[in-house]
């Protein structure tokens, strides 16, 4: 088969098949039963797309391509295989950042090759075409924002950047929008500038985009990072789509647009789960402890605490137990210990279920992944709407490192930062045990009045150690 036939017929058909595989893949990823198959389908689609791209090139020097792919595969696989399930949100953010910068690099490379190296006369728009020139700049802008935004999100998730607290610069909206406007101006100038003069403007645009990613993300608190990562995921799709316009490849346009749209919807779904608007999340500053929060003092006055042995005695008589896992469980890597305790209780005839808040952990669905890792049966994980009516008739609730998602203030005080956020009604149970390292506030930065309730007992300590203590005590019953 001649190279022309391959280019004009075979390659487009391969790309079409790979598009269809992506559509089926995403569709199947959104249902529990078919999710894994969906992921595999999408991966096969990607493999086909790469084969198509190599066929399209024909005979070229493959050394850079092969080297880059081998290096990328080793790094990507090493990250993916070694990462702890608890760090999954950070991993998604990191990969997302790489996807964004890749699109920006593709656009820059095309620009560099056609404009700087081959040096045609006339403006950038004349050398590579107006449409391509505009989409080159858009790829750089969106890809750059995605990259640094994702890196900041990663650091916030890790808590290595000011403990995930919002960082609020003075006049930040003015600075951010000013820089966004300036970057767009740089991009426009770069399109209409003569080829030889355009480099500085492209570099200014790239620099502006990278700084914008940081500025847009630092005012947003760690608790909202999952929404930000989801939104950045949408951006990286759009960046890929723009790169598709640059090189005139429909597969990139389609794949990128689908991810862009799907990411946007997913972002919206998450915002609804937290009872927040996307704008409210993006403006940032959520969870800043400014002390202006009305009369409610942040000091705890009447907290009772106990040790594992007392908790075990209460558990001895309990007929029903609901476990509410939160981020503390993930930090302590206590998912296996919690399953062991649940198994012990079940062996004694106690009914054990798990109440999963939509934003428990560091990312929606994060708790489900962690507990699945510890072989907790899927049917025992109940969503908020299902489990909330159950608390009234439940003997014991064990809260493991969760805080804001069980704070009754959300439904009582309309001035509270978390007002209106749906919570798990743990306080309605007969006894509540809160396993927590200290009385420090959660992401929202506020006191949790549940800790002062008469039916609440605090068990201070690392979730895993406390659970191991509890397991020992329950065994001795």
């Amino acid at each position, binding site marked *: 088969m001649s190279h022309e036939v391959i280019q004009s017929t075979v390659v487009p058909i391969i790309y079409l098949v790979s598009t269809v595989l992506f559509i089926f893949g995403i569709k199947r990823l959104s249902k529990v039963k078919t999710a894994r198959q969906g992921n595999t389908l999408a991966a096969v689609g990607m493999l086909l*797309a790469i084969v198509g791209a190599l066929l399209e090139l024909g005979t070229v020097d493959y050394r850079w391509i092969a080297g880059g792919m081998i290096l990328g595969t080793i790094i990507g696989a090493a*990250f993916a295989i070694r990462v702890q399930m608890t760090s999954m949100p950070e991993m*998604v953010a990191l*990969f997302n950042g790489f*996807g964004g910068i890749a699109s920006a690099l593709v656009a820059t490379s095309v620009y560099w*090759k056609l404009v700087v190296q081959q040096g045609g006369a006339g403006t950038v728009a004349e050398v590579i075409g107006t449409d391509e020139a505009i989409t080159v700049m858009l790829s750089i802008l969106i890809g750059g924002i995605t990259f640094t935004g994702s890196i900041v999100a990663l650091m916030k998730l890790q808590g290595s950047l000011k403990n995930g607290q919002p960082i609020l610069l003075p006049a930040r909206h003015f600075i951010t929008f000013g820089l966004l406007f300036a970057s767009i101006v740089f991009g426009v100038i770069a399109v209409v500038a003569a080829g030889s003069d355009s480099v500085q403007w492209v570099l200014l645009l790239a620099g502006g985009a990278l700084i914008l990613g940081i500025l847009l993300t630092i005012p947003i608190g760690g608790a909202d990072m999952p929404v930000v990562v989801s939104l950045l995921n949408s951006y990286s799709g759009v960046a*890929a789509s723009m790169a598709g316009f640059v090189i005139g490849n429909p597969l990139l346009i389609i794949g990128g647009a689908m991810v*862009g749209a799907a990411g946007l919807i997913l972002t919206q779904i998450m915002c609804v789960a937290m009872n927040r608007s996307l704008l409210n999340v993006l403006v940032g500053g959520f969870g800043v402890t400014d002390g202006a929060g009305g009369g409610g003092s942040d000091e705890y006055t009447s907290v009772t605490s106990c040790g594992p042995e007392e908790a075990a005695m209460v558990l001895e008589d309990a007929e029903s137990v609901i476990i509410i896992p939160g981020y503390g469980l993930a930090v302590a890597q206590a998912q296996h210990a919690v399953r062991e305790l649940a198994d012990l209780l079940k062996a004694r005839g106690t009914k054990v279920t798990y109440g999963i808040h939509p934003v428990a952990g560091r990312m*929606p669905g994060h708790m489900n992944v962690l507990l699945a890792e510890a072989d907790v049966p899927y049917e025992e994980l109940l969503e908020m709407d299902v489990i909330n009516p159950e608390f009234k008739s439940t003997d014991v609730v064990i809260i493991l490192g969760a805080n804001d998602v069980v704070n009754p203030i959300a439904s009582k005080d309309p001035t509270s930062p978390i007002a209106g956020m749906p919570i798990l009604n743990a306080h309605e149970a007969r006894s509540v045990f809160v396993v927590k390292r200290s009385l420090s506030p959660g992401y929202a930065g506020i006191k949790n009045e549940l800790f002062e309730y008469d039916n609440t007992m605090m068990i201070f300590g690392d979730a895993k150690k406390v659970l191991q203590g509890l397991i020992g005590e329950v065994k001795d019953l």
Partner: protein
Amino acid sequence: MTLGPLLIGIYVFVLASFVGFEMITKVPPTLHTPLMSGANAISGITIVGAVAAATTAPPTIANILGALAIVTATINVVGGFLVTDRMLRMFGKKKKK
């Protein structure tokens, strides 16, 4: 009416966006993380563009940028799909039990 490449591209972009919107209507919270991670891997499709950007032997700036794009896009693709599979494998295994 004749459509230039840009307009066809915009048609494709808009229609594909609708496909994306329609596909993600009801997703159980359990799957939010894996879905995000899987979609993220698909956005690594930019690797197709990256491959076309690094096709000559001498190390020019365009080529180095292209090669960097290949490395980062490959990390996104390989890591993204692998990590999604790791998560979803866990949902699968308890089914059999």
